[in-house]
């Protein structure tokens, strides 16, 4: 953290892409920054939350991405530079306002960073958010490494301010989570407070003003298309031969390495400023080519644009990309994929893969030892077993989604943040089945409240379990409105989940999920009480809650190897190797296994986890 804040102009630092983005914000004099945490963008907020107050920036973890974009837009409309960032699916949440900000424009620079996730390392889809630039008619930049994240983002602020338009910066997982040498610049003094100059004809988008503003937006974007051809962020590498590659963002890296390693006679046009498209530069690049390969992650966006340029300019060049099947249509790329794809059309000597013949056991992610979600899922499954009841589990986005794994099997349906409650409303009307929906505390604040109102008002009948571990755990433990401190670590009013639920007249119970007997009893009651019920399972995340109890021990004389602790609880600290064993490296002494052992063979080893 110190390295990001204290590095002075010209210093070389080994930065993560997301850390470079945070550095870009302070080098650009951003006065207001906002986000809702989401991997692969999370570390930007982690850095800003620690350094914002030191540099005089305002930073917040907003309740969701739409709110984050609105906070940033208002700041930029008031003449204060603003930065908002999120994962790709977060832009969907924000999109309702985002598309309109193109119309109103901004006064000071406003940059929106979308961290896309090709191959879905930690996401429900791999949508290509470059579409949003076209959709909202705002400029788009695509950095390919941490240095470019810093440089492009800084440029994006100037561009935004010059044309009074928000600018979208699109990264991908391999760029956000790439670490490399970054030469930093100087830190610009930030303007923290501005002045909002009223102009309803611009800032209040009713149909009459929107019609005018859309026309102005198109004019602006046309003006910008005149500068992209000369942008230094679009570059040609080793111009020679009849073959060419057009590429952008992280995909450029693979093309670069392959061409250089194999010393291929292929020129590369690397696009960094990709919307509006530098069509003049592209047609100039295509002029003498026989074949061009379009290498981009995820959708064939540049490829379609190139085809239209070829059509307009009547050029004769074969285009090979996703549309003709040369390159895969889905997932992230790498040098092997790029090589195999290009190798279909030009002779290439590629390494043969030495694959392993034996099949190895998978290693899916799971709940940490001592995680309260494991206990909650154990108890509700026990309650259902005792009631001989089958339910639909409508779940949500967070660590608890890992309940999809055996032996918990507590995830049957999931669309997006907050969908657990919304979808449960639908299931309760469309089926006669019992429904349990799971939602985490941060997700509840993000998008769980409107569907909860919906459930009450429309008299839906199901059980909502709010898994409250006191943090946004999945993305690394960021705070949310339920906590007594904010994103900059200052004191803040904590908002009580149960008060919100009670205010709607819903029957609510709060349990400590680590108390198994009581939890099972509460779940059984809630499952057999008609109408909407809420159970809040509250216990802190084991990653943010440092205190730990002493590891439990097993009396193998009492153990009859019923395997309840392995087959039903599946704590990674308990394994079987000629008898049940507790791995002392991992056990956090949460004592859930002690409570569930039918033979009382597991004993706490003094001290508890509290």
């Amino acid at each position: 953290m110190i390295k990001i804040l204290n590095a002075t102009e010209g210093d070389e630092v080994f930065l993560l892409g997301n850390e470079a983005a945070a550095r870009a914000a302070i080098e650009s004099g951003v006065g207001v920054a906002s986000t809702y945490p989401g991997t692969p963008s999370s570390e930007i907020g982690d850095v800003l939350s620690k350094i914002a107050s030191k540099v005089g920036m305002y930073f917040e973890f907003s309740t969701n991405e739409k709110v984050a974009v609105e906070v940033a837009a208002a700041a930029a409309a008031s003449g204060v530079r603003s930065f908002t960032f999120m994962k790709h699916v977060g832009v969907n949440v924000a999109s309702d306002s985002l598309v309109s900000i193109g119309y109103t424009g901004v006064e000071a620079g406003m940059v929106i960073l979308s961290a896309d996730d090709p191959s879905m390392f930690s996401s429900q889809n791999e949508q290509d958010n470059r579409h949003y630039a076209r959709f909202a008619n705002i400029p788009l930049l695509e950095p390919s490494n941490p240095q470019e994240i810093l440089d492009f983002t800084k440029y994006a602020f100037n561009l935004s301010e010059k044309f009074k338009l928000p600018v979208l910066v699109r990264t991908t997982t391999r760029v956000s989570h790439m670490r490399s040498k970054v030469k930093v610049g100087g830190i610009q003094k930030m303007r923290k407070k501005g002045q909002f100059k009223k102009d309803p004809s611009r800032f209040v988008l009713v149909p009459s003003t929107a019609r005018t503003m859309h026309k102005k937006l198109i004019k602006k974007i046309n003006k910008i298309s005149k500068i992209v051809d000369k942008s230094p962020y679009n570059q040609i590498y080793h111009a020679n031969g009849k073959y060419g590659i057009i590429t952008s963002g992280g995909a450029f890296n693979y093309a670069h390495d392959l061409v250089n390693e194999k010393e291929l006679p292929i020129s590369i046009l690397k696009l960094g400023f990709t919307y509006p498209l530098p069509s003049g530069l592209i047609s100039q690049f295509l002029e003498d080519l026989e074949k061009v390969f379009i290498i981009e992650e995820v959708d064939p966006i540049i490829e379609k644009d190139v085809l239209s340029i070829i059509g307009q300019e009547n050029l004769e060049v074969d285009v090979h990309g996703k549309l003709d099947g040369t390159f895969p249509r889905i997932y992230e790329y790498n040098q092997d994929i790029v090589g195999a794809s290009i190798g279909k059309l030009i002779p290439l000597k590629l390494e043969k893969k030495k694959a392993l013949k034996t099949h190895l056991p998978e290693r899916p992610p799971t709940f940490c030892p001592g995680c309260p979600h494991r206990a909650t899922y154990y108890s509700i499954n026990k309650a259902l077993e005792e009631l001989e009841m089958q339910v639909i589990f409508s779940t949500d986005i967070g660590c608890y989604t890992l309940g999809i794994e055996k032996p918990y099997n507590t995830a049957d349906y999931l669309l997006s943040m907050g969908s657990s409650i919304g979808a449960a409303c639908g299931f309760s009307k469309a089926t006669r089945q019992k429904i349990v929906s799971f939602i985490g505390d941060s997700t509840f604040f993000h998008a769980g409240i409107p569907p909860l109102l919906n459930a009450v008002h429309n008299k839906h009948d199901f059980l909502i379990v709010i898994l409250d571990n006191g943090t946004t755990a999945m993305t690394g433990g960021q705070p949310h409105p339920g906590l007594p401190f904010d994103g900059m670590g200052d004191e803040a009013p904590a908002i009580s989940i149960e008060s919100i639920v009670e205010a709607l007249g819903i029957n609510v119970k709060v349990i400590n999920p680590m108390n198994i007997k009581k939890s099972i009893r509460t779940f059984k009651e809630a499952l057999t009480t008609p109408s909407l019920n809420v159970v809040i399972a509250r216990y802190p995340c084991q990653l943010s809650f440092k205190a730990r109890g002493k590891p439990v021990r097993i009396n193998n004389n009492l153990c009859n190897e019923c395997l309840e602790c392995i087959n039903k609880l599946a704590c990674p600290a308990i394994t079987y190797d000629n008898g049940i064993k507790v791995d002392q490296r991992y056990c956090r002494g949460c004592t859930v296994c002690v409570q569930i052992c039918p033979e009382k063979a597991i004993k706490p080893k003094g001290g508890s986890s509290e």
Partner: protein
Amino acid sequence: MKLSYDIYICGVGGQGIIKAGEIIGWAAMKEGMDVVMSEIHGMAQRGGGVSTEVRIGKAKGTIIPSGHADLMMAFEPLEALRAVEKMRKDAYLIVNLTPIPPFNISLREYPPVDEIIAELGKFSRNLYAFDADRVALEAGHPLSMNMAILGAATATPGFPLSEDAIIESMRENLPERLFKVNLKAFKGGFMSLEY
């Protein structure tokens, strides 16, 4: 022409894999070299398999192509086997012998460690397997295991960075109060390969 010296680091979430990569990266910068590194964050880190790929030299892509890695640092035996196709023929493989069975299988279904090592041996003549957990325990803290592996890796022939640069980078990237223990683990790993 190979563009970089490629190091594949793998294991299980929570073993300090990224930290080991970061220390190598900073050391490479100290030695005046270019370096890129990939990291896995988020969901996969909850006890899942995690890898970090460090490329010292002119490569821009952070994913090591098949058959390109010059060195593997495996913090867990099963995860080493999963990555064999990344290795070039004469790659050096440093493998920790302590297994961490995936939570969804019992140890009985985990391939015997000696079989894993034998299989790895088919892919590389330069295999070095040792109990890095024990070296770390002897150094004073089980969590210094990553530095024991790093120590052994630093001692491999062809490793492009000096021992001094690595130690200096450790000093700058580890909490001060843990540096001594980690250095001891590093030295333990280094020596165990040398002799």
